[in-house]
C-alpha cells in the first residue's frame, strides 16, 4: 500500500463511519423504491400538461422574476458602498472594517426563510416582504464577495490616482471599480439566479409569485398544473443564466 499512510487509512475509516451515521439519521433506505409503481403513477398524473392557466402562471412568473431581480439588485446597490468599508485596504478606519465584517457575516448567518417568516408576519403576506428578505441576505453575501474582490485588486492604479492628487476615497473608487466590475457582475447574476430559487421557497410561505402557485397546486393535487409551473421555473432560471453569460461576455 505504497500510496497510503496510516493517517489516510484512519481518515478513510472515520469517513465511512460518518456516512453510516448520517444514513441512520436520515433514514436512508433504498428499499423504499420497491413501490416504484407509486412514483410512476404519481408522475403520470403530471401529464398531460394543463395549459389553460398559462396566462395566470406567466403573470406569477413575472412576479417571481421581479421579486428576485429587485431583491438582488437592491442588495447589490447597498452592498457596493458597504464593501468598500468592509475591505481591509479601503476601509477608512480599522475598527469600522472589523465591525462591517462582523455585521455582514451576521446578516449572512440568518437564512432568507427566517427573514421571510419574520417580515411576512410583520408586514403581511405578499411579494414585498419577500423582496426585503432577498435583499437583506444579498447585502450580506455580495458585501463579503465584493469586499474580497476589492482586497485582491491591483494597488498600482490606486497609487497612481493618489499621486495625481485625487482624494483618497475617490482614488480607491475610481481605480478599483473598473478592475472588479466584470467579477461583480458575474457574482450578481449568480445571486440573481439563486434569488429566483429563493423566491420560490418564500412563495411557499406566502410571498406570492409562481412559488406560491406551485405550492397551492401541489396541495390541491392539481398535478397537471404543477408540471407547467415547474417547466416555467426551469425556463426562467435558464434564461437568467444565459442572459448573465451574455452580459459578462460583453463586459470583459
Amino acid at each position: 500500500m505504497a500510496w497510503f499512510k496510516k493517517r489516510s487509512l484512519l481518515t478513510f475509516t472515520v469517513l465511512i463511519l460518518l456516512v453510516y451515521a448520517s444514513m441512520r439519521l436520515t433514514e436512508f433506505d433504498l428499499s423504499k423504491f420497491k413501490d416504484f409503481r407509486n412514483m410512476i403513477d404519481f408522475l403520470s398524473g403530471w401529464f398531460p400538461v394543463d395549459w389553460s392557466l398559462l396566462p395566470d402562471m406567466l403573470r406569477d412568473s413575472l412576479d417571481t422574476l421581479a421579486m428576485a431581480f429587485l431583491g438582488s439588485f437592491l442588495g447589490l446597490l447597498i452592498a457596493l458602498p458597504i464593501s468598500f468599508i468592509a475591505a481591509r485596504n479601503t476601509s477608512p478606519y480599522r475598527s469600522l472594517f472589523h465591525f462591517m465584517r462582523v455585521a455582514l457575516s451576521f446578516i449572512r448567518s440568518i437564512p432568507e426563510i427566517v427573514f421571510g417568516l419574520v417580515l411576512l408576519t410583520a408586514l403581511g403576506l405578499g411579494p414585498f416582504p419577500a423582496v426585503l428578505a432577498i435583499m437583506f441576505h444579498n447585502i450580506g453575501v455580495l458585501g463579503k464577495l465584493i469586499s474580497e474582490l476589492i482586497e485582491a485588486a491591483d494597488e498600482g492604479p490606486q497609487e497612481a490616482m493618489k499621486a495625481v492628487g485625487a482624494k483618497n476615497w475617490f482614488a480607491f473608487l475610481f481605480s478599483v471599480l473598473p478592475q472588479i466590475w466584470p467579477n461583480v457582475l458575474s457574482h450578481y447574476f449568480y445571486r440573481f439566479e439563486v434569488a429566483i430559487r429563493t423566491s420560490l421557497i418564500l412563495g411557499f410561505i406566502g410571498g406570492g409569485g409562481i412559488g406560491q402557485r406551485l405550492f397551492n397546486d401541489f396541495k390541491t393535487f392539481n398535478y397537471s398544473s404543477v408540471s407547467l409551473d415547474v417547466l416555467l421555473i426551469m425556463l426562467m432560471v435558464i434564461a437568467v443564466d444565459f442572459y448573465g453569460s451574455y452580459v459578462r461576455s460583453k463586459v470583459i
Partner: protein
Amino acid sequence: MLKAENLSVIYPGSDKPALSNVDLSFEQGEFVCVLGQSGAGKSTLIRCMNGLQKATEGEMFWDGSPLSKIDDKQLRTVRKETGMIFQHFNLVPRLSVFQNVLTGLFGSRNNFRNAFGLFSDEEKEMARQVIGNVGLENEIGRRVENLSGGQKQRVGIARALLQQPKVFLGDEPVASLDPGTAAHIFNLLQEIHFSHNLLTIINVHDVNLAKHYATRVLALKEGKVIFDGKPEEFTDEYYHLTYNSAQKKQQFSVVSKR
C-alpha cells in the same frame, strides 16, 4: 524646489532603516537619476517626494512646504503639481488611452465632475495635445490593456503631463521595457524636461542611461547617499561601491590571492 532634511524612513516591522538621515536638495531644471542596488531605498526616496511615503524622522520640503506637517488639501496640491510615472505603469484598466490621460486632471477638479467624466472641451483638447506629444494620437481610443509596454508608459507620461507639473518623478519607469524602448522613453522624458523646465528625478537600474541623460547622478546604498555629483564623476570605483556588497568584495579578494 525639493529638499530632504535628515530624512529617515523605517518601515513598520523592520529594524533596518530604508532611508537614514538623508540630506539633499534639488533645483528646477535638474535631471536627476538615482542609482542603487535592489533594496537600497530608491523607491522609498521617490515616494517621499510627493508624500506617498511618510518620513519616520526628518522632513521633505516641497517648494518650502513640509510634507509631514501640511494638511490633506495642501498635500493634494503638491501631488497635483508633481507628475509621477511607475515601473508597472499603474494605468486604470478597462479604460481607453484618452480616459486614462484625463485622470491626470483629477487633482484640480471636483469629484462630482470627475466621477461623471464631465470634462470641458478645453480640457479634452489639452488631453489630445499631450497624447499627441507622446506620439499616441493613433491609439487614443484603444483600451490600455491592449497596448505594448512602451505605449503604456507613454500613456503614463501623458497622464502626468496633463497635470502640468513642476516636478516629474519616475520609479524605474523603464525597468520593464526592452533597451530600445527604454531609450525612446528617456528621449521623450528629456525632451519634456527641457521644454517645460522641470525638476525630473528618476530611478534607473541602467548606469549607462543615467550617465547619458542625467545632469546629476545620485547613488544610494542601504538607505544612505554614497554619491551625489555630475554623471562624468560617477567612476567605475563608485559603480563597484554602489553595486557590490562588502562581503562579495572579500570573497573576491580571497579568490584572487590563490
